[in-house]
């Protein structure tokens, strides 16, 4: 599978979860995040400042679009014949193309494309994640921590769009921790 936007909050978890299920994972990120992407277990890394994965001839069974933008037909080109494209996020253009056009494009041929919807959590999935965390198969990549009083700074930083893993807000410690 390929994850476009593998270095942010969603991507760093997606890579590790996919690896824990035995997938061969290609991560797409920029130069500054190549080493980090390798360190969390990706098999292949594509630096999007150097290479366009939609034009290198590779085909993937599953593409998770987390960040950035590629036209929906470019993603389609990078899918294997029975491949599936799951849109999670990215630029507004990516979202507003994938949401309405995914189901339409899926009617042609056997490739499936669509928006995952807004993530919901349920206890069953959370238990799977808990077990992965306890087994050390998934470990959060934490970029920065900000105290509660600096939430504005934290969001200003996150909005720049280049977080390396998660941005965390910490709340004052107390004795009963």
């Amino acid at each position: 599978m390929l994850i476009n936007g593998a270095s942010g909050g969603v991507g760093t978890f997606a890579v590790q979860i996919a690896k824990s299920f035995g997938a061969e994972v290609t991560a797409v990120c920029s130069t500054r995040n190549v080493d980090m992407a390798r360190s969390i277990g990706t098999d292949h890394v594509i630096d999007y400042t150097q290479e366009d994965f939609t034009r290198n001839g590779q085909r993937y069974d599953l593409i998770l679009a987390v960040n950035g933008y590629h036209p929906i037909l470019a993603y389609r080109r990078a899918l294997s014949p029975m491949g599936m494209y799951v849109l999670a996020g990215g630029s507004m253009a990516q979202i507003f193309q994938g949401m309405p056009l995914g189901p339409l494009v899926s009617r042609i041929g056997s490739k499936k494309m669509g928006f995952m919807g807004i993530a919901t959590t349920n206890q069953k999935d959370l238990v799977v994640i808990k077990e992965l965390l306890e087994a050390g198969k998934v470990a959060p990549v934490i970029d920065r921590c900000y105290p509660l009083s600096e939430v504005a700074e934290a969001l200003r930083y996150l909005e720049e769009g280049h977080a390396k893993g998660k941005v965390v807000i910490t709340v004052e410690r107390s004795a009963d921790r």
Partner: protein
Amino acid sequence: MKAIVRTAYGSPDVLQLKEVEKPAPNDGEVLVKIHAASANPVDYHRMRGLPFLVRLVYGPARADGLLKLREWRLGTDIAGRVESVGNNVTKFQPKDRFSPDKRC
């Protein structure tokens, strides 16, 4: 308790750290003492009310407070411990470690 509150959509400057009243858990609810939370893109979308679709969900909110935001606090995922539980809560008790999605 302390909370980050806002009364309007806008840049991070709309966020204020305030002392607010600690809520009591209603039936079927738990009160969680938060140790850490994460910042997510959805937080700045809700903060700015952008894209505009966000305002259909959370209300139009004007700076003069004439139209109130339905949700005036931000935040998505949390980790902490249960502080107290409301009536009819059987699965959780105080001191349990708790990490849901806020909507859970």
